């Protein structure tokens, strides 16, 4: 297999190589062995969304994770029939980890607010690839746990104590 790495260099940068480079920078994948990342990079697809097109709707089980290559996407929450904007995601953002692990109808909706290009990976492909490397599952679980923990730490750090209602419901990292 070693002889191949030099071959890789000779090949003009192709989409597969770019995908591989992206995956290796994402916390969720970076600790996985190269063999597995290669397969995932090969299985990923690139999707483009035009302005106003939805990546997913509330209650959809679209079953994939997204990495934004370029463009901007906005997250919404449906509150009593009114769409409430939550936040924007920009190039470099990776989200949807949990959807890779099991059925997960979305609680939020997300749409592109300008021309958006994403790298997406579906649960089916992820599971199939991972089943070839059963001993890697613990790393995935660890990465998910860490990202939840990290999220909550950041949440507390960024002045949420001002929101009394929120303080009653924090502790998602204790699930």
């Amino acid at each position, binding site marked *: 297999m070693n*002889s191949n790495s030099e*071959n890789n260099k000779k090949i*003009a940068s192709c*989409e597969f190589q770019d995908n591989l480079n992206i995956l290796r920078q994402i916390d969720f994948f970076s600790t996985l062995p190269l063999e597995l990342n290669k397969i995932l990079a090969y299985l990923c697809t690139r*999707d483009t*969304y035009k302005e106003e097109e939805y990546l997913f709707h509330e209650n959809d089980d679209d079953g994939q994770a997204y990495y934004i290559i370029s463009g901007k996407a906005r997250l919404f929450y449906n509150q009593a029939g009114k769409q409430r904007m939550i936040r924007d995601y920009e190039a470099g953002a990776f989200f949807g980890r949990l959807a890779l692990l099991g059925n997960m109808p979305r609680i939020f909706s997300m749409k592109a607010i300008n021309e958006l290009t994403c790298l997406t990976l579906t649960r089916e492909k992820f599971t199939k*690839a991972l089943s070839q490397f059963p001993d890697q599952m613990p790393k995935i679980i660890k990465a998910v746990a860490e990202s939840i923990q990290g999220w909550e730490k950041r949440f507390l750090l960024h002045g949420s104590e001002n929101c009394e209602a929120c303080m009653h419901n924090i502790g998602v990292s204790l699930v």
Partner: protein
Amino acid sequence: MEKTKPPVVKRSLISWVWTSSLKLQVILILIIMIEVFARVIPLEMQKRIINEAINLRKIDLLFMYCGIYLAAVIAAGMLKYLNNIIQTIIGQRALADIRKALYHYILTLPLNFFRKTQPGMVVSSLITELTTSGNFVGMAVSVPITNVLTLLAFAGYLIWLHPLLALVSLSIYPIVIFLVPILQKRSNKANKKRVDAGRNLSSKIAESITGIHEIQGNGAFDLENQKYDRLIDRLLKIRIVWTLYAQGVKTLNNFFTNLSPFLIFILGGYLAMKGQLELGALVAFLSAQEKLYTPWKELIQFYQVYQDASVRYKRTMEYYDTLPDHEIAPKDRKPYDLEANLEVRNLSFVTDSGINLLDDINFTLKPGEHLALVGFSGSGKSTLALCIGQLYKYTGGHIQIGGKEVSELSKKDLVQNMGFVSQSPFIFEGTIKDNLLYACSARNDENGSGQDAADSMPTLDDMIAVLHQTGIFVDVLRFGLNTILTPDQDKDLVSSLLRVRQNFQRDFGEGLTDYVEFFDENKYLYYSNLAENLTFGAPNRDEFAVTNLPQNEYFLRFLDHAQLTRPLMSLGVQLARQTVDILGNLPPEEVFFEKSPVTPDELDEYKLLVERLNKVKLHELPASDRAKLLELALRFIPATHKMVSLPEILESLILEGRALFKDKISVEDPNAFTFYQISQYIFSQTILNNIFFGKVKTVNPQAQEKINQSIIQLLIEEDFLETIVEIGMEFQVGTKGDRLSGGQRQKLAIARALLKAPNMLIMDEATSALDNNSQARIQNLLDSRWKGKSTLIAVVHRLDIIKNYDKVAVMKAGKIGEFGTYDELIAKKGMLYELEFGKQ
């Protein structure tokens, strides 16, 4: 016919001898008579040739007797052959009959039976275990008759020669007749064990093949191997014992029959010495005695076949000897048209092991009322649905439909009145249409064919309507659009499609450029393979098909001429290396290979090729390897095979090559290709690509939706939608429908039940694999078109769709905890409330 006969599992093996081919058996007996007679004639001729012809020196008699002798030998030989043919036919027919009868019977057995029976077992019963029964039936008449007759003839001859000597030498046979069955009994015992062990083995194999995902997922190879090896070892031991006993019978038989000459020598010799027997007579006796051996051996063999066949036959039939829970068809009346009111009283269902799955269930539904069954999983919802649908036989209480007790109705009565969509519906191999019509055809088949049945089959409009209602219409349309037409197909179809293409270009051409890559002579097509890019046309002859191009001399010369050989080879090398590097160790699953230029079957071949590539230079490879690499390059689709990018230089070389190729071949072989032109239908491409005059670029669902809408609009304008859907209904769904998604399978299953338009419908979590919209759509359909018309019992896994049901039943641990309208139950703040809003 079936009604008066006992079920197949109660029939004896012998009975098949008469039922399968009685006429043939009679003919066979006649043939045997003549055959035995023909065998005796040479003996008589022998005598006459010596006594009359040679002794009296009559040459004409010599010729005549020799002629008869010869004729008799030839006749005997031919009759023997005929005998064999008839035996084979009888045997194979009987085997086919037994297999059919048993299969037909097995299909009617209760579901419960199949909970504990593995498919592999049924397969081995029907395929392997019954073959000896066929052999036996074939032999059953001819072998014993032929051999017993022959035996009697020779024995009589012996007695006539010398009664005392004959009796002594024949006295061996009673001993053999006494001893053989004793050994055979042990052999049979081992044989029974062997049948059972074989059965376990096939179950085991079926289990591991079905569960292969789990085994590979857990890496449980050792575990499974151990289980399997243990069964094999057990079978090995049993088989050795069984074979040894069978051999034992043969040995014993040989031993005793060989004793016979010994007895003749000792007694005959004594008598000869005493002068009571002529030496000549003793020799004649000995040689006649020897003739006994073959028929006797054949009888013993026959006996063994009979024993083996009857053990296997009995063991197999015993296994399936349970009764169907319900009668299949009413005996002396037409199937009922039942009123669709349902009454369930004190219903209980207790399993064989005494577990109470349903307990004291009571409720009633008026015709056309809709009931939602909710409750935790395992609470017995499916069991209740199965009992009402007559798939389980309830053990206590009553279920009455239209005042008739369900357990006393025949299957036909129920099928006539009820549709059932099970929790995991099964889709059969065949087309969408076959599956759609499955329930209707089954119902009508049973009502007998003929005009009536044809009348009650759904029309194309009915089918299209139900495809719409269940939301699978667009999918079927897609299948239709993805069909590749053959040149001999309807000319009108093709010219209409060309019209659709024109309108498409006019109305949508501009708007869809983002989504469609049009066939443009001056542009590289990233969504088409390299061969298509180069030839830019559809081959009209097989030798120019993509798979044949790497061997096509003309094409290879062209590549050299266009200076494309070298860059294509190196592209092929890159593709092979990269694909093998990424996919080299993966199992042959669709997910892994859908974006690979190498198919799973070819992977190993290319792996070896890559290894060879690492050892020698490209130009040193054998021609076959170079062809393989070229083939890979020709398959290369830049937008799909992302592991390699298309070098810019190659891209422009190919565009130049395209022009060159067209010029060259239009002169040298003008009919080889039909070039892509806006005015020509392309028979190598799908209908959709033909309408587009290009290929879809995106998999993005929203873009797909837009494309679908414009296509549908166009097809409607041209009054062409139904034709395409009809083509789409011919789509082959694959084994178990594996070429459909889970959602499509469920929709198809619902469509199949709705198409039958039963007045009572049971749906067990029928929409669980559907997305929200599809689910809502089907719920609306049920509310608007079926309420008041058909009684519905729906097991519902999501509570947000139950508000419109007339009644809701909440099940808990096999009982109905609450029954009433949605509003009543919510107001009561009981179990439903708790399910919906959680504990307060």
